[in-house]
């Protein structure tokens, strides 16, 4: 039987997951200094609540959401605020950050008392999710309470849980599904209580067969009304548009949200965070990060506090075997390359990659071969957009649906002329918006 997938476009990069998919999640030791950015989510940055010299305790709020689309930030440790300074994150966002020096003795008695979420109303659950600063952990870091607030009159047919992890190299979600299936499932049940969907589907790509089996067994044991759906491997299946097409055969029109086709998509990592927030009252101040790449001595998956510096993570993973050509935050297809080893990780950092110099190719003129058109999952014409943008015709590019582009990278990945298509689209979007 053929497995489900989305139809239009997509590419098949080698998944490179063997580097770290056998490594159990380890708890990362508390580093000497944490740099916690106030812009860990999509939307307005949080407001700093602390001043240098203040003592903070683990889980205490240090940043206050500053708008409708914004999220609170919490301290991952007991410690002292040493400084408030500007920090540049891997995605080039520059914002305020709270620098915390952790105490030598940490209070580890927190978050052990279980709350029965069935006794909570859905408003209480949403309030709890907001209070604990939960954001989507798949990469876009959209505040979860905003996503899960369904306006009256709207109905959710499908709650789709994203366990696809289609980016090469990354194994954080995979390990989480293997090691914490019960927590993920309970997190999903919490979401179900809020959203009341007709169907609940977990979409997982076929290269994670062990995770599919683990979750299926756990669902059977608990008798939850959740369906696990194995999907054929294809990038970018983890994008909500492609995932909904693959799992429910519905297409989100341009500029619309999943809710417009009666669906909500939540990442497995987010359901785990929601479980911890609602059941144990634990704010989102740590996450699973994959430290991997050919240049890392011991690729691994760790659960690390938000604000840990990349240098500490790399040192934990045994350092570099060879000097990497690029450091990437996130996956290789959509992640951001950065150069500063002191860049801290944020809520959305699913992985840190150190990749060597891939055999470099020379750029040539566009051959109009059509690879990019065939690869584009959104039905755009990347080569045409590229020509328009490089000639400064931004408005015309916008008319050719440039804003539909999600920068998934399929076009650049398959371009034989090695054109920087995605780079041009990022530029074009900025210039097009200006006008």
């Amino acid at each position, binding site marked *: 039987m053929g497995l489900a997938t989305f139809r239009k476009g997509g590419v098949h990069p080698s998944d490179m997951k063997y580097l770290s998919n056998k490594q159990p999640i380890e708890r990362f030791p508390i580093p000497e200094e944490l740099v916690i950015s106030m812009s860990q989510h999509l939307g307005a940055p949080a407001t700093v609540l602390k001043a240098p010299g203040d003592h903070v305790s683990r889980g205490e709020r240090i940043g206050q959401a500053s708008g409708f689309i914004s999220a609170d930030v919490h301290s991952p440790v007991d410690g002292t605020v040493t400084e408030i300074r500007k920090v540049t994150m891997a995605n080039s966002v520059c914002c305020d950050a709270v620098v915390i020096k952790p105490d030598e003795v940490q209070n580890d008695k927190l978050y052990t008392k279980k709350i029965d979420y069935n006794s909570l109303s859905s408003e209480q659950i949403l309030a709890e999710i907001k209070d604990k600063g939960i954001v989507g952990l798949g990469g876009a870091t959209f505040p979860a309470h905003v996503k899960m607030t369904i306006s009256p009159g709207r109905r959710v047919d499908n709650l789709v849980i994203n366990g696809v992890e289609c980016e090469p190299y990354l194994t954080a979600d995979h390990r989480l599904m293997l090691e914490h299936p019960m927590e993920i499932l309970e997190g999903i049940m919490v979401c179900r209580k809020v959203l009341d969907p007709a169907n609940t589907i977990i979409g997982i790509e076929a290269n994670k067969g062990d995770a599919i089996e683990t979750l299926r067994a756990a669902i059977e044991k608990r008798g939850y009304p959740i369906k696990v759906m194995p999907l054929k491997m294809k990038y970018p299946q983890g994008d909500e548009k492609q995932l909904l097409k693959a799992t429910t055969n519905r297409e989100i029109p341009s500029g619309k949200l999943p809710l417009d086709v009666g669906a909500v998509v939540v990442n497995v990592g987010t359901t785990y965070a929601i479980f911890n927030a609602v059941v144990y009252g634990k704010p989102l101040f740590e996450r699973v990060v994959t430290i991997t790449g050919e240049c890392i001595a011991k690729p691994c998956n760790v659960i690390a506090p938000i604000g840990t510096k990349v240098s500490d993570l790399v040192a934990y993973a045994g350092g570099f075997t060879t000097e990497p050509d690029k450091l990437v935050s996130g996956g290789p297809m959509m992640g951001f390359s950065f150069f500063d080893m002191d860049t801290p990780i944020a809520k959305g950092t699913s992985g840190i990659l150190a990749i060597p110099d891939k055999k470099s190719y020379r750029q040539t*003129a566009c051959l*109009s071969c059509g690879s990019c058109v065939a690869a584009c999952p959104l039905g755009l014409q990347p080569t045409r957009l590229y020509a328009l943008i490089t000639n400064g015709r931004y408005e015309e590019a916008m008319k050719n649906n440039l804003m539909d582009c999600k920068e998934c990278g399929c076009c650049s990945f398959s371009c034989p002329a090695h054109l920087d298509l995605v780079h041009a689209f990022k530029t074009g979007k900025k210039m097009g918006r200006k006008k």
Partner: protein
Amino acid sequence: MRRVSSSPHFHSGVSTSNIMFSVAAAMTPACIWGVYAFGLRALLVLVISIASCLLTEYLLGLISKENTLWDGSALVTGMLVGMNMSPSIPLFIPVIASVFAIAVAKWTFGGLGANWANPAIAGRAFVFFSFSSAMSSFTLPRALSAVDVVSSATPLSMVKTAVAGGEVAGMTSTQILAQNGYMASDLATKIAKATGFNAYNIDAFIGNIPGCIGEVSKILIIVGAIYLFCRKIITWHIPLTYLGVYALLTWIFGGIPNGLGFFRGEVMANMLRGGLILGAFFMATDMVTCPITHKGMVIFGIGCGFFTFLFRSFGSLPESTSVAILLMNIVTPTIDRFVKPKRFGEEVAK
């Protein structure tokens, strides 16, 4: 030093030169057959075509201060020019064709990727209409002649001449060829006896047929094309629609010029003669000059098939593959303007 760049930080590994050298490799078996069938003279024509393409590319690169030899496109053009020449061609003609292909058809429009016509076809068309008689005289392959360099018309032009003479009412092309004393090779005759296939078609399939150096061996061209299919360098859209439409039209209407009537066209005979197979797999599929969408490629293939049939069966020239492809090259930008991929989300949600 660590590099910082926009995503993606991962690449499939294909490159322009990689594609071009693969295409060149895929055409090599057919070239080797050409040299085997027509002797070292054919090799000389191929070498001269390739060398003049490369030299022209290099010299133009000196002027524009860019070195584009390594991308392999000039090599492919050179091979195609040579493959489209008769083995007995005077040697200055492939030189002119090559210079025209690279300098006029490609570089005046902005070099690789900017040309509107397939350079090799443009070069061939230029010399074809300049030196028609030299371009139309062919020699018999090794298997059909006891001595070297026996000139002969191609089966296509033999039939064309006979049909134009008007004395062939109701005869199939096989009968016309037999009447004109066209021979089949011993091997093909033996196979024909054993299998019941037409001996002329077997010869044409193997490559024992007078014609251009690279177009004669259909089986080796198909072998090369299969390699390109496997490498995903060409897709089925153009070759299949091209050959399919041509075969269909030939079957329905191809018998009319011979006075045979509808549905009496000789599909296999016409498909295997001339440059159709080479054109469909290696010239129509040129990335630069064919549409970028798969839908557009299908339209392009249908157009090529239609015009090839029209010119071959009802035109004055015996061979018209390259003219048909050239014509569709002109239409390509228009196809690309109107045929756009369907935007995601435009289908009504079920």
